[in-house]
């Protein structure tokens, strides 16, 4: 299995290079050079110096290699709009806030979504099941910006239980301001987990080994905890990787609604400001996160499912 994991880790490197390459190519295709604004005529010498500073005078493959080197040495270049700040600084400042939002949203999903799925699966076709699945369908369908504004409308404006916006800035600071944004972001993964766990548990209960366990006289409680629940968690682990992408997408919107100064809001502002290096840096960062999440899921899967250890193409 060690060989498998090492192979998987090594394989991540070309994927990373390819993704950075694609983002690099895409950034180059965007119309408009930030240093060739017509309204502010720049003398040729200054133009040349600017281009040299941002490596724009080198051929594209050198630019790419320099950028890759920058990614691996955590130096994403200077911001084009805030000249005194580097992209790495901006990421360091804004990213932990978004990370906290995402982690809390995931916590909502795990703490409430998985038990909801277990309850629904243990009492299929009862009132509990129907109620839980009804709510999970709603959580599945409502766009997160609507959930967010609904939550603000009721819990912040009508009931006055939570503040409408703001965010505790330190990574470990948690107060009442984090509740609504993380819930708004966590509702979809919560609903998703509930559905997934219910589905896989019902499926697992049909398996032969569950019947064997019951037939040999094991108590139903032990059967559920030892056999059904454990095996049902494998798809949940697999599903976390795409959920990462969805949560990243969600933070963009949630940060705008709750005025959270996170990386998503900064990204959108940078797109409007044409701050290319920031846009590129944040895109690369989110890609790296997703790729590493995928890697972790694959490794976790190898630990959870013994079959993947031996047979693998």
């Amino acid at each position: 299995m060690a060989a498998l994991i090492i192979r998987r880790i090594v394989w991540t490197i070309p994927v990373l290079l390819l993704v950075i390459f694609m983002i690099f190519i895409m950034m180059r295709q965007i119309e408009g050079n930030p240093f060739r604004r017509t309204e502010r005529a720049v003398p040729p010498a200054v133009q040349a110096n600017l281009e040299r500073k941002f490596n724009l005078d080198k051929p594209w493959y050198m630019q790419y290699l320099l950028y890759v080197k920058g990614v691996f040495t955590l130096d994403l270049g200077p911001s084009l709009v805030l000249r005194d700040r580097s992209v790495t600084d901006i990421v360091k400042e804004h990213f932990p806030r978004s990370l906290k939002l995402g982690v809390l949203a995931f916590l909502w999903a795990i703490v409430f979504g998985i038990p909801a799925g277990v309850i629904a699966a243990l009492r299929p076709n009862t009132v509990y099941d129907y109620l839980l699945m009804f709510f999970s369908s709603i959580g599945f369908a409502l766009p997160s910006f609507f959930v967010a504004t609904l939550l603000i409308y009721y819990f912040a404006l009508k009931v006055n239980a939570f503040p409408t916006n703001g965010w505790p800035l330190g990574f470990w600071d948690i107060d009442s301001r984090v509740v609504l944004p993380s819930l708004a972001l966590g509702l979809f993964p919560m609903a998703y987990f509930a559905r997934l766990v219910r589905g896989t548990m019902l499926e697992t209960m049909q398996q032969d080994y569950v019947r064997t366990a019951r037939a040999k006289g094991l108590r139903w409680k032990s059967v559920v905890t030892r056999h059904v629940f454990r095996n049902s968690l494998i798809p949940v682990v697999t599903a976390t990787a795409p959920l990462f992408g969805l949560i990243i997408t969600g933070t963009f919107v949630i940060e705008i609604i709750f005025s959270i100064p996170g990386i998503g809001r900064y990204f959108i502002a940078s797109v409007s400001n044409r701050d290319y290096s920031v846009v590129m840096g944040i895109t690369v960062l989110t890609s790296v996160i997703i790729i590493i999440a995928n890697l972790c899921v694959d490794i976790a899967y190898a630990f959870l499912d013994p079959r993947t250890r031996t047979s693998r193409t």
Partner: protein
Amino acid sequence: MAVNPREATTLEPQTAAPPLAETAGAPIRQASLWRDAYRRYLRNKGAVAAAVVFGIIVFYCLFIPGFWFIPGIWPRVFGIDPNQVNFAEVYLPPSLEHPFGTDQFGRDLWTRVAKGGQVSIGIGFAATIAILVIGIAYGSISGFVGGRLDNAMMRFLDALYGLPFLPFAILSLAIIGTVNFWTMVIALTIASWFTAARVVRGQVITLKQNDYVRAAQAVGARWHRVLVRHLLPNTLGVLIIFIFLELPNVVLGEAFLSFIGLGINPPDASWGSLASEGREAYRTHPLDLWIPCLFIAALVLCANFIADGLRDALDPRTRET
């Protein structure tokens, strides 16, 4: 021999595995397969309700403001133009003439939401179909040719999976430069075609091992013939389900983009941009925000239920349970 002789001569899709005993009554059975599916679908109350609501939404979006050659009911009866600004009628409460009231510019929301629905659903279907076409092309080539090419194509997909959806779509839009209906379709397609490719590839690989494909290969059919005449028709059921599974994702993606102000521009509307406009004053006029959001939610829910119903009706594996 278990080979089904119909497979060589018909393009009619057949999602079920070839029946074991009743090969004789071939043409009749073919028609009744879809009738079977239709009957099974009708038995699923939730799916039928979802289809009805879906139909109503589409009808509302097309006939209330009018579309192409379809005359609009509201413009005819009340002379309302969805983009007509009227500052004398700002934030009117719902009435017969304005069933959803008016927005901050005095525009009629009833027709505006319907117009926005045309854009949202239109982008949804156009992008879903584009995703399917690309996914089918990529996935079936990869799955059918197999070997080293398959490996390379799948590794490329792995890399694409590393790109986050929203930044990828935003970058695509930035590259295209302008934002309108078709560029939104292109951007959303670019950002989300990989899942379709994987689904198609998996399907093709499963089907490839079926007896009738081996038989076709054994009698000397070349790979592209097998692909077009046997494999694609047999995946049709899965593809129809996929349309309704993918539609909500695309509609939500469009809504996200428009909501954060990087999608459809005013005065044109989509449900996402209407929600974005409605959010500006939702504390005093929550209706402006809730109506487009409820339409998005209704569409997503309906598509999910329809997909579930179709899967139960068309997929032979879930039939017994």
